[in-house]
């Protein structure tokens, strides 16, 4: 039944971190993974790891271009599309479509991120042909019938209303709105009550026509499947898509943040705290150094400077973490915590102090060594389940890392020197740009 986990929030953070940040893969001498490039007759490319453990096939795929492209006033379009393209397609209405999947335990789902639109298919091999055909229908002939769209829209509106009363959500939202002010990244991918209400069936049809294409599609597959079998299935699912997606562009942005605290008053006993400062992009030559540094500051589960100072020494919070958020057009370093209103001032002061000391002096030699052995040693943990392996294969393609990246990744971490670490700590960590966003009734904060 209910389990009280000490670190559920941290695990969640880790997932968010992995999605927003980059994919954590590496290599140790003992572990080799064979990634195959599979190209179908119709020219659809997928990266495949064959795994015969179970009679299952798992595929993840991404269309570049996400919720950041939602038209102004129609925020939430990509998200609504993600929730409705599997609600009836071809000659199947919503109920028929869903029951066809359910009866065969086929799982097809979609998710709209700011930069990408992602899909997942998971099926038993005995139902694989049907699964890929259902995916084809969802991608190429979604119906968007009035009934299911109304039902899903009502669910999304209800979720948006709930988010407005969720202090953690509010703090994160304010952080995004401030860091990326005036940019599409400032908008919620779920949209607003007003914008979601404005989205029409034509908008949804237009979304599918413009965004789903073969030239912005990246695919990762894991499972008990041969390359030749996969080729046919790739063509079955994707060859009916247009060759090219509508052109898109998201302007680059550097977060404009200054030290300070923004408070969103909410009647709750615990203040939700989010903090943010400018970050580092995925293709920056110092990215791996920054990744190692973040682990030291607030990326580790039980071992980080923030964990030590905020939780272990002072008992100020249950949850305290930081993560890199390198998106395609802009990057931030983010973090979060939650503390009793009365102790919010002390918590903010403690986090600021960690930040300032780290910027001034960087990590110690042993912190750097430990971070590197953690990050390289944790590599095989990414390869324990089909969905995380498939996600890795897609992320490698999203980030342009090359099909041999898995063999090379640990060398990138190993190459981070103590001099790099000190230099990047100084340039990247900026206490004068570290801003706090608090939802609650925090006390003890300096008035500004």
């Amino acid at each position, binding site marked *: *039944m*209910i*389990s*009280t*986990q*000490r670190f559920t*929030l941290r695990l969640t953070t880790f997932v968010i971190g992995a999605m927003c940040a980059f994919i954590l893969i590496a290599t*140790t001498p*003992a572990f080799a993974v064979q990634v195959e490039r599979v190209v179908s007759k119709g020219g659809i490319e997928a990266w495949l790891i064959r*795994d015969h*453990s*179970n009679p*299952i096939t*798992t595929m993840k795929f991404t269309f570049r271009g996400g919720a950041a492209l939602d038209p102004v006033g129609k925020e939430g379009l990509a998200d609504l599309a993600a*929730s409705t393209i599997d609600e009836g397609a071809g000659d199947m209405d*919503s*109920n028929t479509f*869903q029951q066809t*999947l*359910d*009866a065969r*335990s086929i799982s097809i789902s979609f998710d709209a991120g700011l930069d990408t639109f992602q899909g997942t298919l*998971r099926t038993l091999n005995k139902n694989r042909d049907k699964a890929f055909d259902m995916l084809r229908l969802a991608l190429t002939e979604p119906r968007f019938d009035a*009934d299911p769209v109304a*039902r*899903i829209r*009502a*669910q999304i509106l*209800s979720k948006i*209303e*709930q988010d*407005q*009363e969720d*202090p953690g959500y509010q703090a994160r939202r304010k952080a995004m709105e401030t860091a990326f002010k005036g940019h599409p990244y400032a908008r919620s991918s779920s949209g607003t009550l007003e914008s979601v209400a404005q989205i029409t069936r034509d908008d949804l049809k237009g979304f599918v026509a413009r965004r789903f294409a073969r030239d912005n599609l990246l695919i990762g597959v894991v499972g008990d499947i041969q390359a030749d079998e996969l080729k046919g299935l790739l063509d079955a699912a994707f060859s009916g898509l247009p060759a090219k997606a509508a052109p898109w562009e998201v302007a680059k942005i550097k977060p404009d943040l200054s030290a300070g605290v923004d408070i969103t008053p909410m009647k*709750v*006993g*615990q203040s*939700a705290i989010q903090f943010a400062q400018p970050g580092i992009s995925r293709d920056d030559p110092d990215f791996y150094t920054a990744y190692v540094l973040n682990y030291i500051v607030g990326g580790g*589960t*039980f*071992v980080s400077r923030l964990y030590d100072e905020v*939780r*272990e020494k002072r*008992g100020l*919070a*249950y*949850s305290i973490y930081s993560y890199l958020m390198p998106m395609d057009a802009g990057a931030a370093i983010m973090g979060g915590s*939650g503390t*009793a209103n009365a102790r919010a001032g002390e918590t903010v002061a403690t986090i600021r102090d960690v930040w300032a000391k780290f910027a001034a002096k960087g990590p110690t030699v042993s912190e750097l060594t*430990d971070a590197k*052995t953690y*990050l*390289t*040693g*944790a*590599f*095989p*943990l990414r*390869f*324990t389940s089909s969905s995380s392996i498939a996600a890795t294969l897609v992320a490698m393609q999203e980030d342009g890392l090359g099909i041999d990246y898995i063999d090379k990744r640990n060398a990138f971490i190993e190459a981070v020197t103590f001099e790099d670490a000190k230099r990047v700590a100084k340039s990247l960590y900026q206490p004068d740009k570290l801003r706090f966003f608090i939802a609650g009734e925090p006390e003890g904060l300096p008035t500004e």
Partner: protein
Amino acid sequence: MNIFAPKRFVWLAVLALFVLSSAPAAAQIFNPETFTLKNGMQVVVISNHRAPVVQHMVWYKVGSADEAPGESGIAHLLEHLMFKGTKNFGPGEFSGAVARNGGRENAFTSFDYTAYFQTIAKDRLEMVMRMEADRMTNLLINADQVAPERDVVLEERRSRVDNEPGAQLSEQVGAAMYLNYPYRRPIIGWEHEIRALDVDRILAFYKKYYAPNNAILVVEGDVTVDELRPLAEKYYGAIPRGPDIERARTTEPPARADRRVVLAHERVTQSSWSRRYLAPSDHYGKSEITPALQVLAEILGGGPSSRLHTKLVLEDKIALAAGAFYGPDDLGPSVFGFYVSPKPGVDMTSIEAAAMNEVTRVLNDGVTDAEVAQAIERMRDTAVFARDNFGTASRVFGSALTSGSTVEFVEGWLDRIGAVDAAAVKAAGEYVLKGTHHVTAELLNKPQS
């Protein structure tokens, strides 16, 4: 689970419940091996050579339901304090070693068990076994460590419960549901009792329950039983057996009245309705009907084809989500329940009537053979998927074996489910849902004054 979430999350939630509680998703799928050390500690090995990784878990047969009156939260606070060091390793040393070696770790507490685990490269298994075995008997904590950690737990309680109206209601529902059984207390504890916990009481609890004969070692991953056995004997086998521990649990008297628990809160935007009936588990009450109850829960509320979803969400269009829940794993009495998230503007009376109409239909007319066959088929499929998800097998065995099950019982799950027929489903429904007093929960918006 009575809190509304968008549809895909609802299915996930239902699935998660299923995997954690009703799907010892196993029959001849996990194929574990098991043996028992001389000091009484049981060992379960689930070999899986997909990646050079192991998950190492120690499960203790003690949870919040084993706490003495007035000590709620002590099992969970002890779980936190188990990370504070021992006679042999200083505070943070264990966690530091796990991290330096590329491992992840965690711990969790439930009604019937407390568990600790590390996921780590297989060649580091011996290291974590040495340190985990050490903290089974050598924990060293003082009042200066307890005070800040108690604050951490109070923050955990604030974030999980005090800041969440739905969780506040769930606590009250638990207390109303169980008249006498200790599941009526929240796992994390009542705040005033957490505040009163001190180092002496915590150490007494630790000394009473943390012993090899009250623990189970579960290792999943790239390891064989032949590799594990000598390590288990070396590290865990060296610990002396403790006194025998009897889990003396109270039993439930018959409920004599229906109960309705209502929370209206300004921060609730989506109302919800749920109703719960006390039900047998695999270890409490009429255990032989638990497979039929699982099939009934699947038919009534297990997914997009279920009766509640079809009727309330798709046909009548009065709800955003609807489903059923039941899990047989608990050592004590379980709960069979239904939940509905009403559409805005639909009143609770019609929601309740519509949901109960589906229940009455089952009681009067039963379910069809086709429904039973489809439900069983889907449950069989979840067993295959469960094996694909690293860590599921250890969770299934750990939670089942700390709640009174055997490996064979867990592995027999699909056989038991497969033997269920429509008549058994109807009879099980009647046993649990007919004439039994229930608890109804309503979460409502209170307009801001």
